[in-house]
């Protein structure tokens, strides 16, 4: 075994301080295997050392929360003894290196997080961010990532029902692939990871261990440079077939009373799963590495402990249930091996991880000192400088408003993402009530009238310009998208994608976003139940736009009462809920039509988010939907009012006639401003609806009527639905038909 030199320590990503702490914990110099274990356990990815301090400030409780952050996924109570279990996770770096496998294994990993807790996955979402369309790698990355997500999810038979996809220069060298899974379990049959019961067997199931992705967890925690791109660490290849078998076998075993604790092997595989189980249970583990199923010959302990081979699980079983469990896994043609036992803590109450190989003890690590004493940093940060609000009158009007609308709905960011979601099986399991293309997807809870609503949202340019408002807005938009279907928003999972936290400006973005998210979660009763952090999304000093992706889940008791975004019939009134001020700072109009990049101070502040107003307007809209008064609903976000109207028309093939606004706001600001807390609803009886709005103190105004095959805005501006549709639908397929897509 090679000698431990300062270079070796540095290669393992440990700072001098951290190395001193290792020596203190061990009371001696560690060997290579032990050093490797410290290195992955203390990597940013596994230890959250830069983010922990701030994540603790997020609100995580509500009466309906069964389990908040800290386990594999968050759990909420959805009534009738049922629970929804969900989480979002990033696979950014691996997807940049090998888009198909990186994205595929990301989907596989997040599904394991959910089914390891006893839930059957019922839906997947994916939030994607790519570089400029003109960047040479973009097409190749889009093609590979989308195919990888589909390849894994489709084979698993879990519908992929929603997500987002945006393009921006800041992601040229660091794409974001955030995958979310929502699962369904019985509230009284949930599985946790805390090991308990001295002498109980520790069991390994699933695929064999190979030399896959060794050091993946540390890779996810360092910046890219040209040199690391060359080095190309071993990429993990996903095997969705095996994962489908693993899912069925685990659920079959979970229906018995054999499992004490279970944990999937994700980043840092066997190491983090075993340490987590032991640490949570306050016990030790004696592990025999010779018993670990191995795919390759002559694997070292170091390799086995750090391998990130996919489709594996670790569990603690009740003694005496081993044979029954083995029979289940053999039926599903999976490996099953007893690889260890739980042991008593030592005289100081500290559990030990003792690894045996070839009859010798080859590593002995104190569990809690290592697992809990992972460093926690209070990294220096500076607040993001505030920007002035850009007055609508100071923002140039377009030459032609209809051309501007076409630019907004027909460009990379505003166009239809059908090309993506038609490659995903979004209907398998036969419960997808609202397919992709609406505000939130609706997936029926099998065999009931209930449905879960789900969506993923964030507007990174807002977060960049003002992390606090941007953080609030991401949560508010998620809440609005759920509300727009008629569902009650329940809880979120977050995926914090940022640049290098060692830079105070970046850390300031992180701190600000956490503050904004917290504000919004509190005000909207929308707690955080799970999440994931991905830092160092930076290439040669260029960070990504701060991207805290919010995955929201809501519940509707009777899915028959839900509405979609599409107009439902001719002759209905279109009502705009919320106040329109024409906020154009950081708007899509500014970016796509005027070609600004949002980075300059002149691009203004993002729209402020009034959380009390969000709540008031959203609660009003939800009641109107559930009572049947509102027949369609769409929230306003990117691109503002006209874009939302266009989307409603396209979702239905029914046009609309919109009246001239009776305000003194410039028309382009009225059309494309991005003021928050707004919705469009349609109703056959607008008088009553407006009256109820007045009573509730909600601003509401009829702005037009549905019908026809055109969208007409006042007497001067009109576009046919056919032209609107081709403008919206053609961009992505055309972009991806270029040979670079391979």
């Amino acid at each position, binding site marked *: 075994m090679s000698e431990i030199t300062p270079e070796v320590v540095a290669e393992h990503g440990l700072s001098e301080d951290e190395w001193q702490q290792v020596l203190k914990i061990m009371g001696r110099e560690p060997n290579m295997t032990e050093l490797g274990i410290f290195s992955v356990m203390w990597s940013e990815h596994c230890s959250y050392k830069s983010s922990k301090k701030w994540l603790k400030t997020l609100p995580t409780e509500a009466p309906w929360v069964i389990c908040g952050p800290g386990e594999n996924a968050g759990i909420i109570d959805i009534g009738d003894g049922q629970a929804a279990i969900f989480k979002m996770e990033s696979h950014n770096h691996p997807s940049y290196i090998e888009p198909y496998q990186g994205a595929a294994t990301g989907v596989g990993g997040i599904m394991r997080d959910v089914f390891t807790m006893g839930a059957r996955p019922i839906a997947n979402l994916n939030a994607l961010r790519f570089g400029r369309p003109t960047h040479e790698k973009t097409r190749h990355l889009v093609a590979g990532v989308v*195919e990888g997500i589909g390849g894994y999810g*489709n*084979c*698993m038979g879990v519908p992929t029902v929603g997500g987002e996809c945006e393009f921006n220069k800041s992601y040229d060298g660091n794409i974001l692939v955030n995958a979310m899974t929502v699962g369904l379990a019985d509230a009284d049959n949930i599985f946790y990871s805390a090991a308990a019961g001295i002498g109980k067997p520790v069991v390994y199931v699933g695929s064999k261990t190979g030399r896959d992705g060794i050091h993946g967890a540390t890779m996810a925690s360092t910046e890219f440079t040209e040199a690391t791109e060359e080095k190309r660490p071993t990429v993990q290849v996903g095997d969705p*077939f095996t994962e*489908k078998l693993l899912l069925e076998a685990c659920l079959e075993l979970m229906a018995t009373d054999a499992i004490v604790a279970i944990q999937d092997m994700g980043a840092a595989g066997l190491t983090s799963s075993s340490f987590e189980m032991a640490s949570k249970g306050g016990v030790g583990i004696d592990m025999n590495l010779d018993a670990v199923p191995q795919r390759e010959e002559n694997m070292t302990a170091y390799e086995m402990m750090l391998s990130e081979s996919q489709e594996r699980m670790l569990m603690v079983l009740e003694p005496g249930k081993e044979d029954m469990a083995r029979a289940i896994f053999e039926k599903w043609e999976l490996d099953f091996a007893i690889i260890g036992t739980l042991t008593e803590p030592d005289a100081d109450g500290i559990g030990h991880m003792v690894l045996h190989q070839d009859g010798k003890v080859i590593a002995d690590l104190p569990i809690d000192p290592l697992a809990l004493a992972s460093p926690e940093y209070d990294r220096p940060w500076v607040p993001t400088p505030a920007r002035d609000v850009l007055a609508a009158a100071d923002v140039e009007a377009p030459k032609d408003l209809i051309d501007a609308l076409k630019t907004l709905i027909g460009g990379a960011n505003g166009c239809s993402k059908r090309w993506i979601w038609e*490659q995903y099986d979004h209907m398998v399991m036969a419960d997808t009530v609202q397919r992709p293309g609406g505000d939130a997807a609706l997936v029926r809870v099998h065999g009931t009238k209930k449905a879960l609503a789900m969506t993923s949202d964030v507007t990174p340019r807002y977060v960049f310009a003002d992390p606090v408002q941007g953080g609030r807005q991401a949560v508010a938009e998620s809440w609005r998208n759920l509300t727009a279907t008629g569902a009650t928003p329940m809880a979120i999972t977050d995926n914090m994608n940022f640049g290098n936290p060692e830079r105070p400006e970046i850390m300031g973005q992180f701190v600000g976003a956490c503050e904004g998210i917290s504000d919004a979660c509190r005000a909207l009763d929308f707690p955080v139940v799970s999440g994931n952090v991905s830092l160092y999304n930076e290439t040669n000093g260029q960070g990504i736009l701060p991207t805290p992706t919010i995955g929201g889940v809501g519940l509707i008791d009777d*899915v028959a009462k839900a509405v979609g975004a599409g107009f439902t019939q001719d002759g209905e009134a279109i009502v705009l809920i919320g106040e329109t001020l024409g906020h154009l700072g950081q708007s899509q109009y500014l970016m796509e039509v005027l070609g600004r990049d949002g980075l300059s101070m002149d691009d203004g502040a993002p729209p402020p988010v009034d959380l009390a107003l969000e709540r008031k307007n959203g609660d009003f809209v939800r009641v109107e939907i559930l009572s049947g008064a509102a027949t369609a609903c769409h929230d306003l976000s990117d691109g503002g009012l006209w874009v939302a109207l266009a989307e409603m028309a396209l979702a239905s093939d029914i046009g609309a006639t919109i009246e001239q606004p009776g305000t003194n706001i410039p028309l382009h600001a009225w059309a494309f401003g991005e003021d928050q807390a707004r919705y469009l609803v349609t109703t056959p009886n607008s008088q009553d609806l407006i009256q109820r709005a007045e009573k509730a103190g909600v601003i509401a105004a009829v702005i037009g009527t549905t019908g026809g095959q055109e969208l007409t805005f006042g007497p001067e501006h009109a576009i046919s639905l056919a032209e609107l549709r081709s403008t919206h639908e053609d961009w992505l397929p055309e972009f991806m038909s270029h040979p670079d897509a391979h």
Partner: protein
Amino acid sequence: MKACVIVFPASNCDRDMQVALERSMGAKVDMVWHREHDLSGYDLVAVPGGFSYGDYLRCGAMAARSPIMDAVKAHADNGGLVLGVCNGFQVLCEAGLLPGVLMRNANLKFICKDVELMVERADTAFTNGYEVCDVIRVPVAHHDGNFFADEETLNRIEGEGQVAFRYVDNPNGSLNSIAGILNEKGNVLGMMPHPERLVDEQLGGTDGKPMFDALIKAVA
């Protein structure tokens, strides 16, 4: 009427098929594991969609060699009804119960969307709830649905009227826009589109339901 759904490793539309059949039958539908050997007592055997064996090697190839497939063949030889959807269609072709083969989609991409099908045969146990030339809307969700057969086979299939459904707008490159075919006796149907996904108004339509209603009547 007694029906069952075969389950292979990584079948994943097995439950959807069961739900659709039960909805029309009002009775329980059994799931049969691929290692079993006996299908006696069933009137209808459904081979569901999914990714049996991960679609590795060739779609349906490994499932077609499962122990249960001998029983499926015997069931079909005895005149029993067999319905294969999507991966089930691929399995039936690989097992030789239906002619031809499903190749990779012409655009090499997985396609999931509603498509329109033209009904070509309305005189079978599967399709007599429709009229010839009816256009029905049913989802497809597959990577390998590009029907191919050599010229002689194709001529025979067409000559014998074995085409049950054709795509109105061919999504995958299938020869003659073939979406579903029958065996010569007409008791085995394989089709790429998923009728079991559209039997419920809440999910966007019920154009698939007449097939299941017809099957129930056929053996009632």
